[in-house]
């Protein structure tokens, strides 16, 4: 077990290097040019050259890439081009904010969605199944933006149930999060329930279900003792793998509700070519992602002793 974990952690190294190379190629060589964006109508060749030199963009690409690898190892991504903020501080603050936005609705949403998914799978083929499928697909056909604008207008502005937007840390800031939470739960319901329904349906087709019925097991026993348990593996995969991306928050939410999280930082960095932010964020998320992948596999073994870690 210990050896397995160590081996898996070692496998992270080539993955992180791969991610670093990918991000480096995509953004350093072809993305927005931060110097041009910063200078705008006064982008003279001299000014561009000076600004690039200041940011180390005049260095040969291989050297920039090596510096990047050093940053990854030392966990110090330097300062943002645009604001000069220390990135690790910025990420830490931003990640906490993003998590406060996403974790609660994720947990609550996942539980409800699994329950509803199971319910619908149980009644598969019936009118309930069809109507709810139509409902969830319908909810998926409406743009995320429309939910935000409509909920903000109706619930916050017209009904006055919530503040329109804003953010504060600590318990008093909770009031600002309710509406975004509700929207996230509503928006994630459609796609999630669809996935869970499929997962449960797949399990109902498995051999052991037929065997169980053949042995005379009652329907509820089959559902709860067999199907739910066996469906845990695909569900776990889906859930655990989603966690690292919770750090990124929901950038549209963050924009519309003025929540200073990481998602909005990333979108702004894309638009202004702030490479240090893009590089730092991607690598951190990639590390988190691989770690959570490992966690999933460990959970598999825990859920199902037949799975051997080798």
């Amino acid at each position, binding site marked *: 077990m210990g050896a397995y974990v160590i081996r898996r952690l070692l496998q992270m190294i080539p993955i992180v290097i791969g991610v670093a190379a990918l991000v480096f190629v995509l953004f350093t060589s072809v993305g927005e*040019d931060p110097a041009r964006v910063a200078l705008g109508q006064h982008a003279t060749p001299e*000014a561009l050259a000076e600004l690039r030199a200041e940011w180390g963009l005049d260095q040969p690409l291989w050297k920039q890439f090596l510096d990047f690898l050093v940053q990854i190892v030392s966990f110090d991504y330097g300062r943002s081009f645009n604001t*000069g903020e220390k990135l690790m501080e910025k990420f830490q603050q931003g990640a906490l904010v993003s998590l406060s936005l996403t974790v609660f609705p994720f947990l609550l949403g996942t539980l409800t969605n699994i329950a509803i998914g199971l319910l619908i799978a149980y009644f598969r083929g019936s009118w309930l199944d069809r109507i709810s499928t139509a409902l969830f697909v319908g909810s998926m056909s409406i743009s995320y933006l429309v939910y935000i604008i409509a909920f903000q207008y109706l619930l916050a502005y017209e009904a006055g149930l919530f503040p*329109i937007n804003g953010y504060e840390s600590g318990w008093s800031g909770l009031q600002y999060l*309710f509406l975004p939470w509700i929207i996230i739960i509503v928006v994630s319901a459609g796609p999630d329930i669809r996935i869970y329904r499929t997962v449960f349906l797949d399990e109902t087709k498995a051999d052991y279900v037929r065997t169980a019925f053949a042995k005379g097991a009652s329907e509820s026993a089959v559902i709860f003792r067999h199907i739910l348990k066996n469906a845990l593996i695909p569900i776990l995969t889906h859930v655990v793998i989603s966690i690292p991306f919770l750090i990124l928050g929901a950038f549209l939410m963050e924009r519309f509700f*003025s929540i200073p999280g990481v998602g909005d930082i990333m979108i702004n960095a894309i638009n202004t070519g702030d490479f240090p932010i893009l590089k730092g964020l991607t690598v951190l998320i990639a590390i988190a992602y691989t770690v959570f992948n490992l966690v999933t596999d460990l959970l598999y073994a825990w859920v199902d002793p037949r799975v051997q870690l080798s």
Partner: protein
Amino acid sequence: MRRTSIDPRTTLGILLGLLGALTVLAGCGGEEPATPGNGKKIFTDARRSAHKSLDPPRQFDGASAEIIMNVYDTLVEYDYLARPYRLAPGLLESMPEKGPDGRSYTFRLKQGVRFHDDDCFEGGVGRELTADDAIYSIKRFADANVNLKSWVLLAGFVTGLDEFREKTRELGKGVDYDTLEVPGLRKLDDYSFEVEFTRENPLALFPFAMTSMAILPREAVEKYGEDFASHPVGTGPFRIKQFSFRGTMILEKNPNYHGTYPSEGAPGDAEAGLLAAAGQRLPFLDEVHMPLIEEPQPAMLKFKKGELDWIGIDKDNFPNMAYQDEEGRFHLKEEFAEKYHHYAAPRLTAEYFSFNLQDPLVGPNRALRQAIAYAVDTPAFIELILNGRALPLQTIVPQPIAGSERDTGFQYYRRDPEMARKKLAEAGYPNGEGLPELVFEYRAATKDARQGFEFIRNELAEVGIRAKASFNTFSAFLKKLESSNFQIASAGWQADYPDAENFFQLVYGPNRTPGPNSSTFSNEEFDALYERTRYMENGPERFALFAEMAQIMKDEVPLLLRFNSIAFGIYQKDVLNMKRHMLIDKPYKFLDKKAEAMPAAEAPAP
């Protein structure tokens, strides 16, 4: 495996519990944060984007400037009320006096101006501002290791300053400015110094009003190093109470501020109540709250709830809230006019299509460019796409700047499909036959750019010209302009200073790419006229020459002039002294709020 089985009843219980909790908590969410009244005057105004740096010479973006102009002071600043825009003394006692050589100016500082209290000073008490600070700040502005963004606006102006910049580049970071003399900067005494310019130049003082040239204390730069960008120490009307990049920035009143409200205004200002505070000590507000709200929709909802004091109206909300009458005046719809005041003021911008004269198709074919100019209906564009919030440009100079069509009386092209077809035939493409599809470059992929092009595409199609668009990222767009790798570009210019020269230089030959003249227009007659008017004082003589220049631009069409957009905004009725100034984006120090109505209990008994 028993340990992993989930009891459905437990699950349901948890679910219901959480839902219940959510409902209860949601109920509490309705309470608005108590308005922190207690007699304080608080002005709330949203920022549209996060600032980049509060170190004056290191920033060159609107969001940073908005804060810096309220925390720092410049030597000269724009007069808040005067129109057309003109300079007024800022940290100076009076406007700099020109010496007998016409090139040297004496700057006399106000006495008794103190920096904000800060730990970088002895005992934490702000010290008095002196001529040394001004010279230090000008040198730091010129330091090649510090100012990478706005130097170009002072380059070549001050005797010896360009050489100084080269020296700092050679010596690297952390140069001791005292060891490098600049011949054009001479300290006379603690409160006065002389600046010698390289030539007689009426534009020379404008750069001293830029936020990048704000005056700052050496102690703070040395104490805070790189963090100086988030730790400003100025002499301005406000100082930072709560610093935040992406949350709410809070400014608080500097009780020792030296400035006073202007005592003279433009015609009509007195009637509008803008002179009620004449001569009073600034600022009037106790605090300014600046939350970051990037999207227009929530900002408007907050404004309507009374949580913001001031907002510009975006395109989507405009038709709901306001309209333009037949004479072109703007009004708020009745229900909003009862609650809010509004303003409509032209910006200092010019939007145009730039023809790349190096392009083999549009470059050599003047008649083709003229055909396009005749095909486009700018007033209709303004009405449909911009809800009327723009003025068609008649010359490259926007209306609020001296030398615009208001002074020259010049008229640009009007849409005339007949003429367009005639010119098209003259260009060698009767009814557009044989003319390849033209490519328009845009600097963003926004809805406005897309719809704007769609309008143009249709107008051109009516006379037989086919066009398509390429929507670039901003840097890709600039790169195309810089390398003359485009055909027609939708470009614009925002005034660096309110003088017509700043706009005519856009087609001045020597400013060709990679300079701001991206169409690479080069016309001897125009260049000679430009050079004559460049350093001339405004007046009938200069305006007459402008008309000649405008005529050349109309004949040759290096740029197809389009419009000068209008800023339209609304503010709450209790806000006082609001007059939209395009060079003072956030004039918090002049603004005031009506004192809150006395609570009923304290009202005198009848």
